[in-house]
């Protein structure tokens, strides 16, 4: 076990001395910030135009922290002579980040790619009630969603989702 010939206690002193001379590993937040990886699950962003109010995310959330309200509207047909279309319009899409577990089931389950992960993590509030974020705020976070990065060697490239 003793690869060196010096007694263990002196060796221990040497290690702490050497570590003292090396630079510290602390990242002085908030003056310096580390970059989280691309896939880091920081916050969920909503792309409203893709949402069809199918409610799959709200149903599959383990904490039931997504609140969705929508209504149907009639729209004119796309072409002449067609039927009127009914379109679901999103009234309310709130995620309660006080309950959210950051598990990602909603992002994965959405069939229309309306929810995305963003590595943004600096959104703390002074009171818990203010952690309920509405669709406007969720839409703002779309700007922080990174491009999906390429996959490792050997991965199958036929992936529909990021």
């Amino acid at each position, binding site marked *: 076990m003793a690869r060196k010939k010096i007694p263990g*206690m002196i*060796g221990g002193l040497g*290690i702490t001395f050497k570590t003292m001379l090396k630079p510290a590993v602390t990242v002085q937040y908030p003056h310096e910030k580390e970059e989280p*990886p691309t896939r*880091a*699950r920081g916050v969920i962003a909503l792309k409203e135009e893709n949402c069809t109010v199918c409610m799959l995310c709200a149903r599959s959330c383990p904490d039931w922290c997504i609140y969705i309200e929508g209504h149907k509207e009639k729209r004119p047909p796309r072409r002449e002579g067609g039927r009127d279309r009914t379109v679901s319009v999103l009234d309310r899409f709130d995620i309660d980040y006080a309950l959210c577990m950051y598990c*990602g089931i909603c992002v994965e389950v959405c069939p229309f790619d309306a929810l995305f992960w963003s590595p943004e993590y600096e959104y703390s509030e002074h009171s818990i009630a203010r952690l309920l974020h509405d669709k406007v705020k969720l839409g703002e976070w779309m700007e922080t969603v990174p491009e999906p*990065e390429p996959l*490792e060697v*050997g991965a199958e490239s036929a992936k529909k989702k990021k």
Partner: protein
Amino acid sequence: MSTTEMPSAPDFELERSAMRHLADAQMNVELDTGDMILNLGPQHPATHGTLRLVVRLDGERVIAADPVIGYMHRGYEKLTEFRTYPQITTLINRIDWLSSFANEVPFVHAAEQLMGIEAPARAQYIRTILTELSRIATFVLFLGEMGLQVGALTPAFYGFRDREHVLNLIEGATGGRFHPNFNRIGGLKDDLPWGWVSETRQVMQLVLDSCDQFEDLVVGNEIFLSRTRGIGIIPGDIGTAYGVSGSNLRASGVDWDLRRDGVPYLAYPDLDFKVWTHAAGDSFARYWVRLQETRESVRMVLQLLDGLPAGPVMAKVPRIIKVPEGEAWVETENPLGQMGYYIVSKGATGPFRVKIRSASFSNVSILPWLLRGVYVPDVVTILASLYFILGDIDR
């Protein structure tokens, strides 16, 4: 008996003899030098969480010890009755939060067994790599934190510092440092990002250097040796009788590792690794075994990275997962010991009942036997060397 009434003669005699017995009993109590009952916990730096250890002391020696658990019971088994399988996977990695990926594996394995699906080879390999990474993360923290419990302040910080690199790797692949939530029934959620393999190789070299540093700083230290050698000896047969598992049992000389000896799971049959045992069974042996197992895990990860097959990471599974009726039991070698899930399914989208066999629950059950006659400082050393996580005990 009211004082206005004179008791009848037979009652009077009975009462007097009762009072005499009472006086004798009281005198015995007063002459007794009085053991002190000390409550270690539930808020205590030594108990790794909300474990309460009621010890009866005679001076500084423990006469009897009684662990009181349940302060962190979160009702996992009840929670699983009302969740679907994908939802349960997000919850169970919080049982043993230090090695969180390893908690998901037996559950997903059991569900896959019931459905008759097998995850593709690449998924098995990546699952094994992530399990071993979580084992490394847990053990590196143990190596540092046991030094802290024994009194040295610095190793704990080294443990946290070196664990960061492994957590960054896990975050790069799964998106979450502590709660990866990466397993899905049938495989994994995603494949690895570009550059992950080479980054992992670099981090493994760092972990090996860190293990060497711990060996010099902690294991070579004579004070540490005198604090841990011969303390808390668990004989192999007593350990097996109490259900102790994992590194604790291997440090008592029992050569048992589910990765090699149990039902084959993940990619372990393809790997060539050594199971480390130590004959002494004391706290030092438990530290030494975990140190060697960390190095062994590094070797395993490098082997897995070399042999990583190409291909898909998800098998064909239906959109809505309904597990057919049946029961399945899967047990795996988690960093803290043996963890098992027993799933009873009645064909719905969620299980009917899940029973979780967690390692620390059984590891802690040996404490009343183990702590008889030890000194108070040794209690702390023993608790640190058994290495339990409260979430794992209480679920």
